[in-house]
């Protein structure tokens, strides 16, 4: 049996009087795409924040490749190989695209501040390496032309793809996409679906988790779906099952399925 | 002896409370630490001083205080118009507010230094005798007057903030300017009102401090740190907390000065600041400490 890359058991989180996430359990295998869907306010981004350790869970455990990461801080978990994008693109506006992607690799640099300031070999090597890896990643995802641009000057669809590239460059084991299609027009959504398809081909071992509202994206791409409403999982299963689930339709009353 | 120290401490604390409140009120609305407050204190101290000197026989002290408060209001509005207004309109990050306020503070200090030099100016005597006795204990007249004036102003302020519609508007805008606007509160006018109050407070503090110590260009900035510390310890969202903390601070300062000398104050101050901010940055009442995630 394949060891689950990411597994959560009985996660819960409350903010003041509101329980944002109640008893969330899920599993993710390498190479899988799992989706978390649900109406607004269902606690989906909170789940992401719990898994990427921006918040600490009140109860429950999180296992990453079999290892318990429940108590670990955000930075450690990020370095272990959980990568994410954000609902509103959080690219670093002070850096161009290439530097944004290089920044995701910089934590692992071996050169010290002193070596850097004196332009010693380890610094130069780090620069060469990271530029190479970053350009490779950007080229792989057809973004190489934008390397010198500032994020602010790029169309929103491209910015989103750059954010994904930044999340991929360090070769994570888990990639979490928080509403990647938000703010995209229908054509851009198709491009995004192709894009994610390409990522799956080029990074076959990568496990992906997606939060989305766009049903076409979810039903086409996911292997497994969790449906959240008011912090609880009201249904889970493969897309065909979820599509016909009355509870899901009820929660989404009025939404396009 | 110790009662005198106590009264002196409380009266000093009361003035610090005026400063802390003036500081805290601008912070709660605009979310930045208004460094210029110190400059306003110095400027008003000077203006009050010259006002008193203008007349052949000095006018009642209270009139001077009033005049100074007025100067403070004018100055405060001037600063807002010249320095802060456009920053607000541009919605620039808070750091620019802060930088602007520091610059204004230095500007005022420098202007005062250029015109009045580094001399100290003492307020002319207000009382026939500097002390009076009740029940065998000697009180300093100045300290008592300062205490009374400060307490009166603070009570009025607390009443206004908590019991009037204007105060409600201020509290609403402090929590959320956008929503307040939707509720029909004129945020811009409320902000102006806050600057008016802060200016008046700076004016009063300036005169009181100037009369107690003496008038010099850096008067405001040296006092401001204590006002800031008091509002932090009290919790920057809480007026009552700031006042309580300020009075405590005043007493501690008088006691420390008595035992260790005036130079020990900055050292202790920094130590208290560091420890307190490290251990409980939300202050006693608990708001606004760490940058929001």
């Amino acid at each position, binding site marked *: 049996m394949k060891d689950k890359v990411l597994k959560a058991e009985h996660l819960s989180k409350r903010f003041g009087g509101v329980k944002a996430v109640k008893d969330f359990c899920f599993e993710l295998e390498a190479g899988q795409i799992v989706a978390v869907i649900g109406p607004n306010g269902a606690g989906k981004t909170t789940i992401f924040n719990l898994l990427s350790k921006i918040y600490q869970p009140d109860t429950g455990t999180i296992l990453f490749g079999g290892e318990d990461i429940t108590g670990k801080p955000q*930075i450690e978990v*990020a370095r272990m190989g959980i990568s994410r994008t954000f609902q509103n693109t959080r690219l670093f506006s002070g850096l161009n695209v290439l530097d944004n992607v290089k920044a995701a690799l910089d934590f692992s640099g071996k050169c010290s501040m002193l070596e850097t300031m004196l332009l010693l070999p380890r610094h130069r090597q780090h620069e060469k390496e990271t530029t190479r890896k970053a350009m490779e990643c950007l080229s792989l995802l057809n973004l190489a032309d934008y390397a010198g*641009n500032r994020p602010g000057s790029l169309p929103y669809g491209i910015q989103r793809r750059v954010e994904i590239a930044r999340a991929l460059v360090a070769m994570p084991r888990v990639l979490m996409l928080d509403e990647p299609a938000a703010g995209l027009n229908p054509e851009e959504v198709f491009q995004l679906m192709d894009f994610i398809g390409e990522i799956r081909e080029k990074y076959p071992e990568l496990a992906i988790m997606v939060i989305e509202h766009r049903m076409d994206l979810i039903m086409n791409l996911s292997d497994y779906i969790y449906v959240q409403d008011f912090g609880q999982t009201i249904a889970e299963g493969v897309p065909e099952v979820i599509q016909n689930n009355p509870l899901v339709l009820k929660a989404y009353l009025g939404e396009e399925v | 002896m110790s009662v005198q120290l106590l009264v002196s401490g409380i009266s000093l604390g009361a003035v610090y409370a005026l400063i802390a409140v003036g500081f805290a009120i601008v912070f709660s609305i605009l979310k930045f630490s208004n460094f210029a407050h110190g400059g306003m204190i110095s400027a008003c101290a000077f203006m009050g001083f010259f006002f008193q000197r203008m007349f052949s026989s000095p006018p009642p002290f209270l009139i001077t205080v009033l005049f100074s408060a007025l100067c403070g209001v004018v100055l405060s509005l001037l600063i807002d118009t010249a320095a802060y207004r456009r920053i607000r309109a541009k919605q620039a990050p808070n750091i620019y507010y802060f930088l602007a306020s520091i610059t*204004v503070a*230095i500007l005022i200090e420098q202007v005062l230094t250029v015109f009045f030099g580094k001399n100290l100016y003492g307020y002319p005597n207000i009382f026939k005798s500097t002390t009076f006795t009740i029940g065998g204990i000697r009180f300093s007249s100045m300290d008592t007057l300062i205490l009374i004036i400060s307490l009166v102003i603070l009570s009025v302020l607390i009443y206004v903030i908590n019991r009037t519609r204007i105060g409600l508007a201020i509290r609403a805008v402090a929590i959320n300017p956008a929503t307040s606007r939707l509720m029909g509160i004129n945020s811009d006018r409320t902000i102006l009102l806050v600057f008016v109050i802060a200016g008046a407070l700076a004016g009063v503090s300036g005169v009181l401090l100037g009369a107690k110590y003496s008038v010099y260009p850096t008067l405001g900035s040296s006092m401001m*740190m204590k006002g800031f510390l008091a509002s932090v310890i009290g919790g920057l969202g809480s007026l009552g907390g700031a006042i309580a903390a300020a009075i405590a601070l005043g007493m501690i300062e008088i006691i420390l000065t008595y035992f260790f000398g005036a130079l020990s104050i900055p050292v202790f101050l920094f130590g208290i*600041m560091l420890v307190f901010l*490290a251990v409980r940055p939300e202050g006693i009442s608990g708001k606004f400490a760490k940058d929001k995630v």
Partner: protein
Amino acid sequence: MSNYQLSLVMLACISIITVSGVFTMTSLAGMFSLGQAAYMSICAYLTFCLARYLGLPVWITAVAGVGTSVLVAWIISLPALKLRRDYFSLLSVGFGQMVSAIVILLGDFTNASIGFSKIPKVKHLVWIILGITAFIVFMVRNLKYSRFGRMCIALKTDEIAAGSFGIDVYRLKVKIYMLASAIAAMGGICYGLRNRVISPDAFDWSLSAEMQILLFFGGTNSLTGSVISAAVLKVLPEFLKGVKVFGISLQDCKTIIYCVLIIVVINFRTEGILGERELDTKLLGSLFRKKADGSRRDGHEG
């Protein structure tokens, strides 16, 4: 060059050194400190007092001076960097006031407000200071275009997002703060060597504020802008000596003029004169070779 002109050069250099220190802290890592002058003070007093009372040469005691500044910076930064930005700034003012008070309290050694004078003359001081200045600017520039520069700008823009890429925000800020204090410390030594007298009043918070002002004027993210504005604005008043407006010497008003300038800049050109632009060495090179280069990459050189 006359002694007076050499002295002006040194003045410019010291200004450049201190503003570079502020650059690393504020432009790279987004920290706004008004305590840099305090580190100048700590290092200067320690260096020159030790040199006088222990009879050691300045370049040895300088190591102790800079080392102590960095140690103090480390101790302070550990709790202070957990605070919100303006608390941190106000704390730095308090720190400055404390250092001044301590200097006065130790008046037996430091001569308190009268000033610690008769610091020995050093031969070829101009070249030493020019060298130190060039070295520091060189190092800061390298830092900006390195992994540290990127990580700093990342955390300045968005701490949470930076953390999600494994960037240890807190530790990086501590390191940068310590670096900035080291640079300020070296500025303090140069100051003492040039002026040959130091006093607590020389290192008060308005000096720290002046550094920030010079930085924001030149360009909030531009090292080139900061260096130029640091040198020019510091030296300019010297040329206005003797100019009187309304009977007040313009030089006395120099700080007032700075302040007005910066308020104007903040209000009308918030990003500073040069904004983000840097002196691009490749651009310089191509200008010299008169190459009509086609594509030019915008912004940050990787």
